């Protein structure tokens, strides 16, 4: 049932008020941080309260402002939007807690800015998730770009500024050069900006034009990091770990893939996408991205670099699933959006904990760390297994649906791509795990203050604090729980893909 309601707006306002609270409480940490946590919990509650309304295919909408008879800023929560918003809200709370542990809670202005921007990032994400039309989507999409820029450049070092500039240039450039014209051309062809399940183009719309516009969408939505508009993502790795976690798992890339899904489902419609051969086109592009990104990750040693290229590949998995157009493929795509978020954030949290405890950033330096940081490495293992796609994790369930989807669609080549890329990602993740669990620990030359200077020793390394460890373990657990009991989520996802 489609109803009008204020809940989507409240879910948007909660993080905005949270940001205001963060600024007001800037001299009073940790109340400042807890204000963000509170806003996140409120937001999560609001999003959860939307589930009953959207579970049967209904929507809850709220019009914020109208600026042309055809164009308004309108929020509309549907199942797909709730899936994205719910995932983001849940992980936001955990990221904020993790950031408290990672950065500490000193009353520094930089941290106030960080937490305020974190809140506003969530507002923009919710805005995208609940966009009822292309204008609203574009608006919040761009706001998200701007508000995450200070996060990327958080440390303020010349490298951070440089990475941030690349991030901004790619995001703004692609959005304006490709996405904006795509939206305008869509309007001129379809005479509407609204998302409608099954598509908005009339039967007499020119096929050539629709193909061009589709390509513009794929290039314009740079947040989905489809090659060749992916290189902002490794560049943005200059950001500290909590920010990377947010970019990779909570907000930015999820928003990118979500936009592509909206375009396929609610602008073109599954049928039209298939008729125009756009599904196959997307399959080719995503397959190339998956394989190239996996090969790249394989030869890297920097942990965050590996995760960055891994993310690029996994995002293309989601788009590939959507482009299969079969029910299984689409289900796998949305489930992978959720599952990847939990698994990837676990990996980032773990990498951050490792950095805090050891200041190590290279995969080759993790030797023997399994004994020194057992909890962290256990979480890392669960995340990695999920990304590879092995049971009993959510990654396996998603991949299962992707395989089913490929068979349903009769795309045998895709099966090969999925198989090869699984092997490749197993290659780079299992290498790290094996070395961490079974190799001898890294040693350092003994301290010089007299004694037996010749013998190297194993440095003492311990887990750092509950605030970093607990969120890591929670997301790891969620990765497992969703892998064992995905039923309730799948019900929602089936509604979301129409």
């Amino acid at each position: 049932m489609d109803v009008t309601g204020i809940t989507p707006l409240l879910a948007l306002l909660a993080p905005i008020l949270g940001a205001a609270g963060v600024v007001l409480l800037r001299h009073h940490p940790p109340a400042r941080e807890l204000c963000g946590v509170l806003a996140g919990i409120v937001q999560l509650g609001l999003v959860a309260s939307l589930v009953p309304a959207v579970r049967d295919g209904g929507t809850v909408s709220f019009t914020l402002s109208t600026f042309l008879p055809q164009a308004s800023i309108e929020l509309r929560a549907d199942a797909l939007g709730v899936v994205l918003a719910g995932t983001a809200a849940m992980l936001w709370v955990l990221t904020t807690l993790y950031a408290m542990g990672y950065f500490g809670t000193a009353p520094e202005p930089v941290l106030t800015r960080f937490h305020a921007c974190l809140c506003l990032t969530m507002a923009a994400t919710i805005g995208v998730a609940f966009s009822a039309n292309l204008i609203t989507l574009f608006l919040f999409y761009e706001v998200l770009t701007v508000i995450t820029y200070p996060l990327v450049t958080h440390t303020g070092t010349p490298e951070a500024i440089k990475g941030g500039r690349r991030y901004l240039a790619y995001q703004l450039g692609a959005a304006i050069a490709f996405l904006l014209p795509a939206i305008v051309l869509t309007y001129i062809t379809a005479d509407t900006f609204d998302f409608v399940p099954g598509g908005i183009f009339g039967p007499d719309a020119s096929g050539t034009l629709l193909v061009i516009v589709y390509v513009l969408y794929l290039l314009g939505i740079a947040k989905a990091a489809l090659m060749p508009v992916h290189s902002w993502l490794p560049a943005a790795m200059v950001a500290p770990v909590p920010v990377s976690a947010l970019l990779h798992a909570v907000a930015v890339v999820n928003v990118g893939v979500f936009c592509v899904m909206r375009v396929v489902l609610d602008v073109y419609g599954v049928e039209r996408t298939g008729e125009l051969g756009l599904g196959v086109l997307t399959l080719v592009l995503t397959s190339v991205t998956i394989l190239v990104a996996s090969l790249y990750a394989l030869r890297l040693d920097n942990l965050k670099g590996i995760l960055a290229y891994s993310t690029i590949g996994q995002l293309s998995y989601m788009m590939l699933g959507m482009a299969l157009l079969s029910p299984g493929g689409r289900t796998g795509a949305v489930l992978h959006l959720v599952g990847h978020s939990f698994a990837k954030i676990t990996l980032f949290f773990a990498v951050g904990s490792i950095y805090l405890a050891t200041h190590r950033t290279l995969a080759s330096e993790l030797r023997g760390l399994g004994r020194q940081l057992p909890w962290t490495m256990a979480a890392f293992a669960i995340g990695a297994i999920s990304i590879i796609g092995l049971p009993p994790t959510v990654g396996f369930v998603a991949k299962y649906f992707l395989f089913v989807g490929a068979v349903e669609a009769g795309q045998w080549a895709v099966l090969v791509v999925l198989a090869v890329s699984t092997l490749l990602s197993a290659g780079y993740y299992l290498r790290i795990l094996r070395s961490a669990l079974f190799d001898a620990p890294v040693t350092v030359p003994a301290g010089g203050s007299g004694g037996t200077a010749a013998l190297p020793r194993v440095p003492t390394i311990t887990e750092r604090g509950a605030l970093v460890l607990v969120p890591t373990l929670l997301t790891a657990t969620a990765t497992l729980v969703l892998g064992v009991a995905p039923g309730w989520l799948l019900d929602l996802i089936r509604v979301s893909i129409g």
Partner: protein
Amino acid sequence: MNEITAAEQVGFPILSTLVFLPVVMIVALGFIRNDRALRRTALAGAIAVLGVSVILAVQFQRGTTDFQFGEQLPWVESMGLSYHLAVDGVSVLFVPLTALLVVVVMLSSWTSVQHQPKAYLMAVLAFETAAIGVFTAVDLILFFVFWELMLIPTYVLIKVWGKGSQRGRAALRYVLAMLLGSAALLVGFVLLGVSYRSAPGSGGALSFDLLVLMETPVPVGTQTAVFFLLGFAFALKAPMFPFHGWMPAALLEGPIGMAVFLAGLKMGVFGFLRFVLPLVPDAFAAWSWLVAVLGVVAVLYGALIALVQPDLRRLLAFASVSHVGLAMLGLSSLNAQGLQGALFLIMNLGLVSTGLLLAAGFVHQRIGSTDLAALGGLAQRTPALATFTLVVCLGAIALPGTSGFAGEFLILLGAFGTHTWLATIAVTTVILSAAYMLVFFERAFHGRIRSKIVEAAADLRPREMLAAGILGVTIVALGFFPAAMLGYSSASVDELVGRLGPAITVAAED
């Protein structure tokens, strides 16, 4: 056209009040000797005008094409002239915008103008009278009088209070350019009046009243002549490529206050909307391709030059040329989206130019320069000033979520429908404008601190914070609620498009 009189709406001649209140203030200033009292009185006057203009905006009836707050007195009846003021949806918001800019200019000159403050304030108030006159006059000749009147304070302001060594030349160049345009404007207006006399139903009388002329179609031949005459005058004023030469000189050499007016009040574009489109719609439609091409060339040219400017004011001058080009592209698309977009864009330029110059003023006060070479790393010392500047920059880029977005989006929407390829080219400007604005911001505010002055710079004080906050919030609010502004003009714009509607078919048949 119908008209609602001021007597019916507010019970007093509100437009005349707005036009002549600054004149009263000028006289009052003449009696004050104390420097401090002088500034306070002038500011009080400017705020009073702003207050009255807000009443105007609030009392304005939306959703009708009628001209409102009309007041008419006979002037030279034998020539069909009258003192006739009125506003409609197209013009009404320009009045509060002008009043706002005057307040900002006065605040920004509080400490920076020490040379002959009395004369300076008088010139600013004289400019305000002329500018509000331009936006409210609906008699063509009366409009012309106000239009010319604007020249004197502008010339004096640039010549006397300019900062550059070339200010005398810049001022002269400005005046010569404007006089050239004025000559064309006057000939065009007279042609319109004479053409009305020979139209059936005029009874052989002259009329220069916009409301009367709008009722009477102009012959196609006359339309073309008038289009080029008026078009030339307004293109010079806008300034529209290739008539923009005076603008960078005037902005760089003149005082910051004058730059706010020149960059913030796009009277040339207003002239097109007020006179060219309604009075000679067929000629405008027939030549709209020319307007579109010049618009797009300006868009690209302005943005490319702005990219390499080391000074904020020169950057703003070329950015302004670029934006005017975009507005002209919107007008040339001949549909409601394009026209609404152009109108919204130039209103936004008023806000954004003011914001940027305000920011430049704040920077100048602290560092003593707005040259990028002297800045760098400012954000570390002045986070609030940096945030404000960033919001304004984003507004200038027309990023969604700021007041710039709706205007630019509507223009692209309108232009894609009419001039698809030109619109495609124009999209690139948005990227370029993002580039020059953000590069500028980064060089000024980020990076290493290079000088002791920057090291010691203090952040915004409460009073400055208030001004910056109001402007910043307005820019963001209009990004999410553009309807607040578009609601004023939609009816009038629809009426304008209706006039252009039959014209399009005529042009197509040719």
